[in-house]
């Protein structure tokens, strides 16, 4: 019944530990980079660069790892930090880019 990948991808997350922040029926981004990270992950999976479930597996692991190492009240929590961590991992694991390439670009950008 789900004809759009975008709809499938986010619906799968609903009710699970990796469901994204939402507000009034929409996605909720605190900053432009969060929006970028979200869009890149979906675009890659939609293109078949990796399985959506592989990314979700990373995301759930990143979230539970953070929760195990931080206090519940830790205000430095940010869903999209974990999202970015999971996205980088799936990008490296599927050979789309290497950690070194990303580091090089980050250095160049200062």
């Amino acid at each position, binding site marked *: *019944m789900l004809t*759009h990948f975008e709809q499938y991808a986010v*619906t799968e997350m609903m009710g699970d530990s990796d469901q994204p922040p939402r507000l009034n029926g*929409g996605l909720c981004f605190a900053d432009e980079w969060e929006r970028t*990270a*979200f869009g890149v992950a979906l675009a890659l999976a939609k293109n078949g*660069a990796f399985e959506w479930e592989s990314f979700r597996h990373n995301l759930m692991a990143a979230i539970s790892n953070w929760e195990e190492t931080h206090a519940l009240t830790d205000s430095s929590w940010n869903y999209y930090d974990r999202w*970015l961590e999971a996205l980088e991992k799936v990008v490296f694991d599927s050979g789309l880019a290497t950690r070194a390439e*990303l580091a090089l670009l980050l250095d160049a950008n200062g």
Partner: protein
Amino acid sequence: MTERFNYPPNREALSAARAKALETLLIKKGVITAETVDKVLGFFETKMGPFNGAKLVARAWVDPAFKVRLIADTPAAIAELDFPEGMAGAEGEYMKAVANAPGVHNLVICTLCSCYPWPVLGLPPYWYKDPSFRARAAREPRKILGEFGLALGAATEIKVWDSSAQIRWFVIPERPAGTEHMTEEQLAGLVTPESMMGVAVANAA
């Protein structure tokens, strides 16, 4: 300093730089294009979402004949409006609208998130999939609506609709009093996703 406090000086700036660099790198390598990323985001931000439902409700408020059609044959009525492709397609053909009226209030629940009428309502709120919400909404809707801050008198009948893969319901709330001067576009601004789920009513600004 312990490991615990060893955060980068500006975590936000670092994340922003990392996200940007990753996008730039993947575009440079030809894995994605800026357009594919924009298209994915556009799906959530301009194509499918509660703004579509709000437009339908506002049209129903200003055009009683449209309201009749929207209830009688929801997909056909949706197709009348200039919506993006897919609204009245595979997803939309299962949608059905029910209208609140004096003395009648409708509440929509569902047992699976995939049954949520996404094209008109956007993403479901966190409590929607909660089994206790669904069970209680079916059993004691008046009480649960009270907890949502919607106190309905005993004289108001509450109808509960359970969305399924076959039919995805959404509510046409009543047009608030004192909005006679408002344009259709302004009226659409009063229609919240909650009011189209029936856990709230539409209020004049």
